[in-house]
């Protein structure tokens, strides 16, 4: 059992006691939070532009810093210095809390994700026995944030966006979790470290290359289902229905500006990364990979998922809300149950 990050920190401090443990936990959380925020800041203003530009034959940001990476600075100044406009008739506490809920719920999910090691440090905050359930529960709090934002903005477009967000999340949360359960059946545990450990055995040896028993390879069908459901969960094409700029302006975030907008904007990116982290953990062997340290592999995997979302955005149309619900309830849910049943059958047969 590898040491978790707070334990490493408290070991460094060298004193026992609840206060120290508490402090160590906070320091650990701050470290993880910083890593996530850093790469989100990179992904939001810069990588997204560069990736979209590559797909659309454009150059995109290139002035500020090498390859325009420095665009983060003018971007943040620009966004934060804008006036915070509060719409008349907004439902105040809810309207103010919504961006916080959206951003923090996504960030909180990373608490249980094993992010791999770098030398002696293991980037893993907590490893509860119900890790996977925790992640799903936390991630779906974001939809409460969306509804709060949509409902409290006193704007009909926001309202429609909020309603769409609920409908979409109901339709996709359930298949997502059921597909997740099939992984649990494989791994025999909800604990994240156990799930990762279960994927470390070698499936087959092809000469010098050892194919690991990642669940994505063991059960590509479940992987595909999970990817599709995850795209709806994070609200990106073809399922960016709650935002749908060409239909309902910007959906739930129409009325937000300045700091609140930044929070929502960051929250969405963190959510994409959280989706990537869940996929990496339960399907792609977590931080496992040759040569490079675990954390690097982990980052590569979640960035690959991020790249995929941007790729889909460039080529796929947004489906309609009724079509999405139909896909969710009538197709994906059925397939998810089928997958669960088959997995259970196979695992049962293998065990017998």
């Amino acid at each position: 059992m590898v040491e978790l990050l707070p334990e490493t920190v408290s070991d460094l401090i060298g004193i026992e006691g609840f206060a120290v443990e508490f402090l160590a936990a906070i320091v650990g959380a701050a470290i993880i939070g910083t890593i996530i925020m850093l790469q989100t800041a990179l992904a939001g203003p810069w990588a997204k532009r560069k990736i979209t530009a590559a797909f659309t034959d454009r150059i995109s940001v290139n002035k500020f810093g090498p390859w325009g990476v420095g665009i983060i600075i003018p971007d943040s100044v620009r966004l934060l210095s804008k006036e915070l406009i509060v719409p008349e008739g907004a439902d105040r506490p809810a309207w103010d809390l919504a961006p916080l809920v959206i951003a923090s719920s996504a960030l909180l999910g990373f608490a249980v994700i094993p992010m791999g090691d770098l030398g002696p440090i293991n980037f893993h905050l907590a490893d509860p026995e119900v890790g996977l359930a925790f992640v799903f529960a936390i991630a779906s709090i974001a939809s409460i944030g969306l509804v709060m934002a949509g409902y409290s903005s006193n704007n009909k477009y926001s309202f429609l966006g909020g309603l769409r967000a609920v409908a979409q999340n109901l339709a996709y949360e359930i298949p997502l979790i059921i597909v997740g359960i099939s992984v649990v059946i494989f791994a025999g545990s909800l604990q994240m470290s156990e799930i990762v450990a279960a994927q470390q055995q070698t499936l087959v040896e092809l000469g010098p290359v050892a194919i690991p028993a990642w669940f994505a390879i063991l059960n590509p069908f479940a992987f595909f289902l999970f990817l599709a459901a995850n795209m709806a969960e994070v609200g990106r094409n073809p399922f960016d229905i709650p935002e749908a700029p060409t239909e309902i302006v910007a959906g739930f975030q129409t009325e937000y500006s300045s700091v609140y907008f930044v929070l929502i904007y960051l929250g969405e990116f963190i959510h994409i990364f959280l989706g990537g982290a869940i996929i990496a953990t339960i399907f792609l062997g977590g931080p496992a990979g040759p040569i490079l340290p675990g954390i690097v592999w982990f980052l590569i995997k979640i960035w690959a998922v991020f790249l995929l979302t941007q790729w889909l955005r460039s080529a796929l149309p947004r489906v309609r809300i009724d079509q999405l619900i139909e896909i969710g309830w009538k197709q994906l849910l059925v397939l998810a149950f089928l997958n669960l049943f088959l997995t259970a059958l196979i695992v049962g047969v293998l065990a017998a």
Partner: protein
Amino acid sequence: MLGVLKGMATTMKHALDGETFTVKYPAEEPEVSPRFRGVHKFSQERCIWCRQCEKVCPNDTIQIVMDDKRNGEQYNLHIGQCIYCRLCEEVCPVDAILLTQNFEFVGETKDELAFNKEELKNVPWYKDLDPLESREPDRSAWVGEGEGEVDYQ
């Protein structure tokens, strides 16, 4: 599903070929074609004050003020409302007007874009353009006005 993959393959092909179509404006100035119609240049030395350009201008960009004896000639240009139709250049009998290749000019208010004939001598965007030198060889491609009643002056 195949169609979806085809679409995704198409965008990925564009991403990987590394070609870009946008230009690094203003670092690299885009080329404009020889016939491009940019900002209006007026050459006072050539002008014979026939007022044809004023008459043909569809939206009163050019305003000429003078009395019967051609005293107090004034040539006012409200470049902010020019629509770059090039009719003034086309009717000018002495090539005193040229729409240059330059399309970059700014003013903070509309008033800043109105010029009288003195101010027109040193507006920054004229650079060193000689009306006669540019536009070759295309100048000959223009066709003169038709026969019939001449209705100016």
